[in-house]
């Protein structure tokens, strides 16, 4: 294909992405330098880097940053381990049973995140199923505290994202080289050895792929945490995203919120850039 034809085909898409992604991102940097609320939104006042410095000095920003880090550190490995284990077990059952299990497992992933979170929350209402079981087993009332709200957010997160790792691993297991497994069986390898020396190396690149995607998704997750923490700001269960939203909507400091959003973009670059470089090399090779 000629370069001019290529440009004609891609023009509408590039136009939309430039207009509504590249330009807004640059705008965000600029808006972060303004003192801006909803009242003076069309007439902001330039304050230089003050919003950025304010954000970096804001203890609540760092608090939400720490919770975001905790969330990522728990959710990502949990998703990988559970997803891989269930995929291995699923590989053991008959084709039909697999299909049934798989469609059940996919539900938490496909559902509207806000709705899935709300459904989860229903279990923890004072009259919910979980609260009842908690009362019955521990003989204590389930209460929202800082710890329990955070635990709730993390458990819900695992519930929501694990199917992605599961399905990806499961698809990977279907391409396992059968001869290698057979040869290992003949040589008397145990099941653990086969998993350790054949399956794990086989899914290595998939693991990196899931790891990167889930790290970035865990970093920017908003809907779930918003629903679970919206009414309870006192539980300090804000992540960077919900804290930015709160700064923009509740506190009404749009300029500072923009500065925060820009800083979070810089934060994700640490994970994103190596990933981009690797994909770039791969694409250049493949073409």
């Amino acid at each position, binding site marked *: 294909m000629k370069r001019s034809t*290529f440009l004609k085909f891609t023009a509408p898409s590039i136009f939309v992405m430039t207009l509504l992604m*590249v330009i807004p991102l640059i705008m*965000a940097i600029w808006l972060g330098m303004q003192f801006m609320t909803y009242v003076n939104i069309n007439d902001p006042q330039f304050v230089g880097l003050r919003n950025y410095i304010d954000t970096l000095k804001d203890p609540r920003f760092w608090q939400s940053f720490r919770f975001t880090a905790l969330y990522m550190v728990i959710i990502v490995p949990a998703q990988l381990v*559970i997803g891989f284990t269930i995929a291995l077990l699923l590989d053991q059952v008959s084709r039909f049973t697999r299909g049934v299990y798989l*469609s059940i497992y996919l539900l938490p992933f496909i559902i509207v995140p806000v*709705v899935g979170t709300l459904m989860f929350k229903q279990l923890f209402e004072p009259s919910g199923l979980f609260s009842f079981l908690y009362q019955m087993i521990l003989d204590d009332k389930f209460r929202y505290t800082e710890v329990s709200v955070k635990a709730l957010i993390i458990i819900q997160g695992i519930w929501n994202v694990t199917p992605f790792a599961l399905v990806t691993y499961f698809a990977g297991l279907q391409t396992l080289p059968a001869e290698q*497994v057979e040869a290992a069986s003949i040589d008397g390898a145990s099941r653990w050895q086969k998993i350790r020396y054949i399956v794990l190396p086989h899914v290595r690149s998939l693991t990196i792929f899931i790891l990167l995607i889930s790290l970035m998704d865990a970093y920017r997750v908003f809907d779930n945490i*918003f629903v679970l923490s919206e009414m309870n700001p006192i539980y300090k269960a804000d992540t960077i995203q919900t804290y930015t939203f709160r700064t923009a909507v509740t506190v009404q400091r*749009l300029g500072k919120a923009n500065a925060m959003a820009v800083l979070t973009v810089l934060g994700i670059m640490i994970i994103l850039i190596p990933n981009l470089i690797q994909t770039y090399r791969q694409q250049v090779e493949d073409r």
Partner: protein
Amino acid sequence: MDKVKSPIGRVFIHVILIFFAVYSLVPFFWTTLQSFKTVKDAFARTPKFIFTPTWGNYQELWLRSLPENGGQIAFFLLLALVILIGLLMFANRIPIPSGVIYFFVAIGFVLLLWGIPRLIDTAKFYDYFINTLIVTVGTVVISISIGCLAAYGLARYSGLLAVSILIAALAFRALPRLAFVLPYYSIGSATNTLDTYLLIILTLVAINQPFTIWMLRSFFMEIPKELEEAAMIDGASRLTAFRKVIIPIMWPGIISTALFSLLLAYNEFLLVRLLAQTIWTLPVAISRFTGGEDPRHLTLAAASAVSITFPIIIVILVFQKNLVKGLASGAVKG
């Protein structure tokens, strides 16, 4: 892997798989149960599994008042729906060009949706449902149209520019939404387009575009170049070859991608929440019930959660194959 043979091992495997299935399903099960309870039953300290089910929550959610001749209206609406779906399913067997039939079916659906609030006294939730349909359909149609053109170009052009565009798109897909959505608010405010379908649809298209072109491109790559080259030797232009030769065999890929775009638009919360004051979509509408003192919020939230999930489950059941294929094609995710 070779299968575990010992019976104890096999039982163990199923126990874990069933346990995980229960974990996945419990919230759905419980919420559906709650949605059919009266407020009193829903608030019982000891959860009630046996109760007299009621449609009251759904009625309160969707209708402002009960129509007098409800039975007749329901019958006619159902009949209209059956006719429209029947036409869709058997479009290929009717000796009229399918395009014409699809066109009239689409008009039929629009008339039906427009007519319902004139026949029955629907509540706000119905309006939110219509908003969601408008936003979702608008986003999917525009995303896929411009996405197909771009993805085709990216699949066939091998210059470094194409790779750079793909990488930039990947980067934008990974960034936190708020970095775009907050400036959208300023753009909307400056151009006076806040709370319009136009702004919401266009911004959703932009946000979904990186994902859409990556996924469509992977499908275009599977189509051999020789196909359109043959058509071009016969004198067709590149655009004609694209329209007449490539698109007709791309349908499975387009449907898979459209399905994911549909889910992305239907699910979107943050963007609509910030940019819309009145034209809420369902995910924003339901978040109204997340707290507050009104005890009815618990059962209404349950009923709206089930109502929002229902259409998605239907869509998934119909298109399950495309969905799994899209997921398994890897490298992309909503």
